[in-house]
């Protein structure tokens, strides 16, 4: 998932202009993103996940005229993936029980979250490795300062300072953009 929205969008618009190489690398970059999307939700045999990845890639390819170049790319791709996911459940005759609705809402916000994560990845990549690691651990993965300190082999004070400096740098970077 080390690709950003901007890169994917650029590949998509090149592909739409007839650039086969860009289109190919778009599909290649999407395959792991889709694998993690479906892998998280479908707990079936691996080949089922493969089928859904392939069906989604085919849909993204054959229905690419439904992408509007003026809009972000990943929400479009995720909308197609979600359709394929719902279709998968429907075909298996599974109805979604009411108590699973919560999960569905969570799944939907996961898409926004992953789009956001692409941006976060891009911003974080400009920071020193140590700051990246502690911010990821405390702010994204939700570990405590103590846990992070133990994992990174740093003192707790060191973690706090690193997080603080890192966030400050991020804020400055985000403001620039």
């Amino acid at each position, binding site marked *: 998932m080390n690709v950003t929205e901007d890169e994917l969008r650029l590949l998509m618009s090149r*592909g*739409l*202009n*007839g*650039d*086969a*190489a860009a*289109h*190919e690398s778009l*599909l*290649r970059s999407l*395959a792991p993103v889709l694998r993690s999307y479906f892998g998280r939700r479908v707990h079936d045999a691996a080949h089922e996940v*493969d089928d859904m*990845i*392939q069906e989604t*890639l*085919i*849909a993204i*390819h*054959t*229905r*690419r*005229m*439904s*992408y*509007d*170049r003026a*809009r972000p790319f990943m*929400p*479009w791709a*995720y*909308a*197609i993936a*979600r*359709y394929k996911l719902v*279709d998968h459940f429907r075909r298996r005759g599974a109805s979604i029980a009411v108590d699973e609705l919560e999960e569905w809402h969570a799944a939907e916000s996961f898409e926004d979250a992953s789009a956001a994560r692409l941006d976060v990845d891009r911003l974080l990549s400009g920071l020193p490795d140590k700051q990246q690691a502690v911010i990821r651990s405390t702010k994204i993965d939700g570990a405590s300062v103590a846990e992070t300190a133990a994992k990174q082999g740093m003192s707790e004070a060191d973690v706090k300072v690193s997080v603080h400096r890192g966030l400050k740098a991020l804020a400055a970077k985000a403001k620039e953009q």
Partner: protein
Amino acid sequence: METDDLILRLAREVKPVSARALETRLFGCVAAGAAVAFAALYLTLGVRADLATALTSFPFWMKAGYTASIAAIAIVVAAHLARPDSRPGRWYALLIAPTLLLAIAAATQVATSPTAQWPDLFFGMSASKCSVRILGFATPVFVGLMWAFRSFAPTRLRAAGSAAGLASGAVGAAIYVLYCREVSASFVLSWYTLGILLPAIAGALLGPRLLRW
């Protein structure tokens, strides 16, 4: 098949897609369906002989305006629903405008006519046939739209089906205007609207089955 092989195969056929490809395809398919519907009208009922005179009359433009504006709104909604990530919502609110204008015209006509003429205003000469004929002329347009959607990615199939049905109903009705001699706004408000809604209901029922991908 391996995903890598699939990607290679897909990347072999990369044709350029223009920025307005979706709209072009949608309009093209509506136009093709409308052409078939017009040919059917021409060969069966025929275009009214006094069309030239009718073109200068209020009832003709009332019917043409009502049906064409609904068609335009429904086509815009259908174009939105053709994309997986869009929320058309508010566009349907525009339908209030033509309906309200027609309702005002109908109310004015009824208010200024003697009570004895009210049944004529409502039933005209063709109340029993109008809606069914509109449904008939809507059919080729609906087929065209379903064909267009084969390259789109609708995710709300019932909504997309009903928008396509509404669009075909309105286009079918606009074509039927070339034959129909009814002059009363109440007639149009009831029987044309019914004829436009029938394909919209059919589209809502058929959408989930026909538009699946």
